[in-house]
C-alpha cells in the first residue's frame, strides 16, 4: 500500500528572497531520489505539503509549471512555526514534499478561450505556474488572449518581478501591474487597487475565464467588478485556502459543507462556491 502521508525527500536547490520585507522567499527543490519527480506529476493550480522534519507540514501552492523540468518551486510567506523555520533553512538542506494535492485550474475547459488572470499579493504562486504553463510554445496556441492583472502593496512586494517584466515585453500576453501606493519614481506601471484596474482593463467576458487569486479583501471587491463586466459565476475561477493537515481529504478540518478544500478543491468556480455554505 502506498503511504500517502510519506513525503518525497528533496534538497533545497535555491532560495530566492522575493519581497523587500523578506517575508516571502521562493524555494526551489530538487528530488533526492530519481523517479520521484515523475511520480510528482502535477498540473498548475495544485498544491503540496512542504514537510520539515521536526516542525511539521504546511500546504503551499506549487509555483513552478509542469513545463519546467528538474525542480519544483514554492513561494512561502513567513507566518508560523514551520514557515519561520523554513525561512532560516539553507540551500543544500534536506526536507520533504508530499503531493501533488487537490484539483487544478480546468485546463481542458480553458482551451480555445481567453484567460484573464487576476492576482494580488503573495497569492500569485499558482498563477505564475499557470502563466508559465500557458506561455510554453506547446501550449500557447491552445489559448486565445491572455491578460494578467497583478497587484501588490508596493513595487517591492511583487513576486517574480523579473519574470513579470519579461512577460510585459512579449506580445502574446498583456500584463497590467499595479501597486496600492508608491513614491518610487522608477515605477512605470499603474497605481491603484486591483479591482479598479480590472474595471479599467475591462476584459471582455465573451469566451473568457477569469482566474482570481488574492487576499479576501481583493476578492470581495473584484468579484462585483467581474460580474458587472458580464462574467457569469461559472466563468470566475478561484483558489481557496484552508488550514490543512493530511491534504488528502481524511483529517476532516478543511471542509466547506460537503467539499474538502484539499481534495475537492482548492479550485472552485464562483458558481460552485455560490452553492456552498459561506464558511471560508
Amino acid at each position, binding site marked *: *500500500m*502506498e*503511504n*500517502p*502521508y*510519506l*513525503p518525497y*525527500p528533496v534538497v533545497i536547490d535555491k532560495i530566492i528572497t522575493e519581497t523587500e520585507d523578506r517575508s516571502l522567499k521562493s524555494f526551489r527543490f530538487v528530488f*533526492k531520489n530519481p523517479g520521484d519527480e515523475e511520480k510528482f506529476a502535477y498540473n498548475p493550480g495544485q498544491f503540496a505539503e512542504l*514537510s*520539515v*522534519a*521536526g*516542525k*511539521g*507540514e*504546511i500546504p503551499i501552492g506549487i509555483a513552478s509549471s509542469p513545463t519546467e523540468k528538474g525542480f519544483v518551486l514554492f513561494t512561502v*510567506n513567513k*507566518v*508560523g512555526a514551520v*514557515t519561520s523555520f523554513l525561512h532560516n533553512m539553507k540551500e543544500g*538542506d*534536506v*526536507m*520533504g514534499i508530499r503531493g501533488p494535492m487537490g484539483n487544478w485550474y480546468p485546463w481542458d475547459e480553458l482551451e480555445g478561450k481567453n484567460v484573464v488572470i487576476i492576482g494580488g499579493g503573495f497569492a500569485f504562486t499558482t498563477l505564475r505556474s499557470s502563466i508559465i504553463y500557458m506561455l510554453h510554445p506547446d501550449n500557447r496556441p491552445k489559448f486565445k488572449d491572455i491578460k494578467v492583472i497583478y497587484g501588490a502593496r508596493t513595487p517591492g512586494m511583487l513576486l517574480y518581478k523579473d519574470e513579470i517584466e519579461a512577460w510585459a515585453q512579449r506580445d502574446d500576453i498583456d500584463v497590467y501591474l499595479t501597486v496600492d501606493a508608491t513614491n518610487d519614481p522608477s515605477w512605470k506601471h499603474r497605481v491603484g487597487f486591483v479591482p479598479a484596474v480590472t474595471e479599467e482593463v475591462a476584459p471582455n467576458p465573451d469566451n473568457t475565464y477569469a482566474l482570481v487569486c488574492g487576499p*479576501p479583501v481583493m476578492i470581495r471587491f473584484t468579484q462585483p467588478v467581474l460580474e458587472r463586466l458580464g462574467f457569469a459565476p461559472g466563468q470566475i475561477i478561484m483558489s481557496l*485556502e*484552508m*488550514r490543512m*493537515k*493530511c491534504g*488528502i*481529504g*481524511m*483529517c*476532516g*478540518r*478543511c*471542509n*466547506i*459543507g*460537503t467539499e474538502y478544500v484539499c*481534495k475537492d478543491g482548492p479550485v472552485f468556480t464562483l458558481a460552485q462556491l455560490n*452553492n*456552498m*455554505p459561506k*464558511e*471560508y
Partner: protein
Amino acid sequence: MSEKIIAKEQFLQALKQLSNQQAVYAPVNEGEFYNYKKLEDGVEPDFTFQNTRLSPKGLIQPQSERMFEYSLDPGDSEANVVKEIKRDYGPQAIVGIRPCDAKAIQLVKINFDTPEFRDPFWLKRYEASTLVGLACNDPCASCFCSTTGSGPFNEEGLDALMTDLGDSFLIKSLTEKGEAFLKTVGAGAKDAQAEDKRKKEELKGKAEEAIRSEVPTAKLREQDLNALFDAPFWEDVAFSCINCGTCTYLCPTCWCFDIQDEVNNLKGLRIRNWDACMFPLFTLHGSGHNPRDHKVQRVRQRFMHKLKYYVDKYNNGVACVGCGRCVQYCPVNIDIRKVFRYMNDYEAR
C-alpha cells in the same frame, strides 16, 4: 458460516488462550466504567457491560499514533528524511464490540479507504482486526441505534456475532475471519440447535422493543443544505456548548485527526492524534483568520457533518450510529437526538 453454542466458562478460557497467541481486546470493568483493554495476566474481560465509555475506534485509530520517524543528526546521511516505522500489525481480535460500534467502523472506513487514497495506518489495523460483536440484550435508555440504520442485533461490519443466552454464548460467524475465530475459541463447542436460535430471535425481538429512543432521518437528505446551514436553531443548540472534545472523542464515528512533529534530542517522530472540530485551533489559518471562529459555527459543523454533509456526500445514511455516548456524557447535555429532530423537521421560511 456456522453457529455454535459455547459455555461462558469455556469461552473465557478459550479467550485467555487466544490472548497468549495474539492481541485480544475485550471490555474490562475499570471501576466506574468499562473500556476495551488488551487481555493479559490480571486483566479479566467482563461481558456484563452495557457499553464501554470510550468507543472501540481507538483500537483501529489510536488516539495517538506514531506515523513516521526521522533523524535530525547532521552526521546521519539520511538526516531529515522522514521514514516509515517498521511495525507489526499482527492480528487482533476485538471481542464484545457492540453492533452500533461495529457499524461505526464501516462508516469511518468510507473516509479512510477512498478511490484516490488509502490510509495505510487505519487500513492495516482494520484488516488485522477480527470484530466479534456482542448483541445488546438490554439496550440503554439513551440508545437509538434502530433509527440510525443499525440495531441491537445488527450484523453489519462484524466478523462474528455473539448472543448472551445466559450460561452460554451463541456465536455466529459472518465472515472468513469470524469463522477462523469461531474455530479457535469454539473447539469443542456444539452446533447451535433450533432452540438456541429461537431463543436468540426472542432476545432480539425483546431488545428491539426495548429501544424506545428514536430519531427522525427520512427528510435529512432532501433538506436544502444551505437552508439548514443558515437555520436559526443553531444558536440555541450551541449556547451551552463548552467546546470540549468529549462528544468527538467518545463518538465512534468521529475520525478527525491532527498531525504533529515531536523531537527528542536528535530523533523525531511524526505523530497523529485525534482532533476535534470543537476546538478553535482545528481550523485556524496561519494568517489568524478562522472560518469557524465562533462556537456556534463549530457546533453546527459537527452536527451538519454527521447529519447532512455525510448524508449528501456518500448517500450512506447518517454518520451517527445511535450509541448514545454523547447524549450521556456531554457535560452540558447537548442531545443529538434533539438536533436530529431540528434538522430533519426544519422548514425554511
